[in-house]
């Protein structure tokens, strides 16, 4: 293959291919995450969710995309046309740009920047411009207010989330995402077990950063001030929507890379082999997982009431079987391919788990009011993040300079931060100002 491509552009081929794959696949993936959200929401609400369009609603995202593309493009009369056009583009571009530094596997990364994390955070922050421009360009009092509120929320929680990330960075020692995963491999455990509070802070911060419930007041339907997206319809609106879900995946990707071990499997250093083979036991897990899912599908298939559903269930089972086969085949593939396949599998599993947590939280909790939201960010999360940072830094110094046992220092740091968290939380409740009492008659 190498001799077909001139050497001067060889280094650019794979990144471009990856880029094209990501840009092509991502909107589809975001669409299917929307479908997944609707199905999970339905499951938690004791109902079925989309069922009509395609078997089990599987073609729903396609139908939605077609509908949105065919919708009339309405622009408010007095809106600033250029900004109106540019704003969603800014949001989407920044969201997609952040994927360029995201490692989906040991080899699947467009660019391994040595400041990868910083790049992703910076680019995500630029996405806020898209929101503010959109709110302003709509020429509506309430859209602007909603956009400004959204921007304020994003900025505040980005600070907290960033501080949470830094506490993991202290353990990693590098901003390059690949190195961070490597550090987790070297230290033998995912950072979530070392700095759980940092993970928690990042979780809350990332939910607020992506405008998800319980922090979705700026875009809630039952609130008076409609959000920045009100005046957008059809394709422009779908760009904003795409940006939001792409942001969710980015944030899940960062959390996975920094805290959940990236593409590493659980117990990454546990290299015991199956007796008599060169196959590592832990590497057999992906294949077994798919085998299990396939078995479950085949067991459910005859129980379906309608014939078409039986066929669909059997097909899904067959698909899982095929994937299990692929995973098993990868066991005997060359090192690079095997790492790539399994790395991709684990990365995907963790990202999905993180996103499931997002969905779960969305449908469980009511919404925070805006002032409560800001209070939570500034009076609880940021102080906690700072304390966490100091505690982790102290723990590192203690273990490196003074030779204390690293695990003990981290546990002590966690306990201290937890105590501070409880104190902050209790203090918050007392300071919540009651509404002004109505005076007299």
């Amino acid at each position, binding site marked *: 293959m190498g001799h077909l491509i001139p050497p001067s552009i060889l280094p650019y081929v794979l990144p471009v291919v990856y880029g094209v794959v990501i840009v092509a696949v991502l909107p589809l993936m975001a669409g299917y995450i929307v479908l997944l959200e609707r199905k999970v*929401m339905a499951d*938690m*609400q*004791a*109902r079925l969710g989309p069922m009509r369009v395609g078997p089990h609603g599987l073609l729903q995202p396609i139908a939605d995309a077609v509908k949105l593309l065919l919708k009339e493009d309405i622009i408010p009369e007095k809106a600033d046309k250029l900004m109106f056009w540019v704003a969603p583009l800014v949001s989407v571009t920044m969201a997609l740009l952040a994927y360029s530094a995201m490692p989906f596997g040991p080899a699947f990364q467009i660019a391994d920047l040595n400041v990868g994390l910083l790049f992703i955070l910076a680019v995500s922050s630029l996405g806020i411009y898209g929101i503010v421009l959109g709110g302003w360009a709509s020429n509506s009092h309430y859209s602007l207010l909603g956009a400004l509120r959204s921007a304020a929320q994003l900025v505040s929680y980005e600070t907290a989330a960033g501080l949470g990330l830094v506490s993991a960075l202290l353990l990693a020692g590098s901003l390059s995402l690949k190195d961070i995963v490597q550090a987790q491999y070297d230290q033998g455990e995912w950072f979530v077990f070392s700095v759980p509070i940092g993970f928690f802070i990042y979780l809350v911060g990332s939910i607020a950063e992506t405008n998800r*419930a*319980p922090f*979705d*007041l700026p875009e*809630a*339907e*039952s*609130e*008076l*001030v409609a959000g920045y997206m009100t005046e957008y319809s059809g394709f422009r609106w779908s760009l904003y929507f795409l940006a939001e879900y792409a942001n969710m995946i980015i944030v899940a990707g960062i959390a996975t890379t920094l805290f959940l071990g990236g593409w590493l499997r659980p117990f990454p250093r546990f290299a015991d082999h199956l007796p008599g083979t060169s196959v590592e036991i832990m590497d057999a897990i992906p294949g077994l997982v798919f085998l299990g899912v396939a078995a479950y599908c085949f067991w459910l298939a005859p129980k379906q009431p309608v014939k078409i559903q039986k066929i669909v269930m059997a097909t899904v089972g067959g698909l899982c079987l095929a994937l299990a086969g692929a995973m098993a085949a990868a066991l005997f593939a060359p090192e690079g391919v095997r790492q790539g396949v399994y790395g991709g599998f684990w990365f995907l599993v963790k990202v999905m788990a993180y996103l499931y947590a997002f969905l779960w939280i*969305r*449908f*469980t*909790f*009511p*919404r*925070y*009011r*805006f*002032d*409560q939201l800001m209070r939570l960010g500034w009076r609880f999360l940021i102080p906690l993040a700072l304390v966490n940072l100091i505690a982790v830094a102290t723990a590192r110094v203690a273990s490196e300079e003074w030779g204390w046992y690293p695990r003990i220092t981290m546990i002590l740091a966690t306990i201290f931060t937890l105590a501070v968290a409880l104190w902050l939380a209790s203090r918050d409740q007392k300071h*919540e100002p*009651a*509404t*002004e*009492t*109505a005076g007299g008659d």
Partner: protein
Amino acid sequence: MTDTRTSGLSNVETTVLGADEIILNMGPQHPSTHGVLRVKLKLDGERVVDSECIIGYLHRGVEKIAEHRSYQQFAPYVDRMDYVAAVSNGLGYCEAVEKLLGAEAPPRARVVRTILTELQRIASHLLWLGTHALDIGALTPVFYCFREREEILKIFEKYCGARLTTHAFRIGGLQYETYDGFESDVKRFCEDFTHRIDEYETLLTENRIWVGRTKGVGILSAADAIALGVTGPVLRASGVKWDLRKAMPYAAYADYQFDIPTRPTGDTYDRYIVRMEEMRQSQRICLQAIENIPAGAIMAKVGKVLKPPPGEVYHSIEAPKGELGYYIVSDGTTQAYRVRVRPPSFINLQAFDRMARGSLVADVVAIIGTIDIVLGEVDR
């Protein structure tokens, strides 16, 4: 005719707005106002300085219609006022006319009426809980509440054929006997319901965000509540322990044990707790009643043509929304001379201004929800 208008929100053209004040209109069509309610808010930044409720979008002239229908013919109209709790409306009306006639429903009818009314109270509170939680942002409880409500509506459907506007009772008693399996259905529902309501409590009562959104919001003091004529769970949450089922018992309530939940502060959280507890008490009444439904006739001897002696009567019951009263004037003919419905939602909604002043805009939706209004009853 003297025209004593003040410069409040009542007259928009002459309203004097301060430098930072805007008027925000929550129009009749809005996902959160339950029904067609229009609220005009005068805001100073985020705080509500003044408010005005504009109602009447669902006014159908029920009281005028009553003057041209016979007493029995008017009974189905009554269901359509508070359409969420139709059985209670029917109970109030039938009992008022029975008082006018001097008749009394037989014991069996009274007990079955009690059971159905308490089931209706649970159904009404479930709908309130689901929609109120939805307004505040909790997307899931509404589905669970409707699932429970579905069971109750199935019982109603098996009993009288209708789920929502049931016309379950007749003047003098009941038309239909309880169906086979009525007792077991009600018993099964009540037993299931205990752990369901525990589920809702787990989801919401201790939830930090829920408490944050509802505590301290829309406070109504006991003195204000009494002065504004507020009744029902809103009054009880403000600290006044008063329930018509205990104060002036009707139907078979005097025979059963139940508590009246009250709470001290009168904020949204307290009203939530009171209604949850009321659901538990309703379930308790149902279980007691279902143990021992007396045998006997279900209809008193009131004759086919009702001509109450001339006079007037006021009779009220404790509907899920508050005190639902009927003031009926008879002139001796088959048609009522005047039927006045004392609508609890209408009078409770007056307290909205008192509750909303000084609160934030985001809380207005919670306050409207917590009063638990049904526009059919507000406007009639």
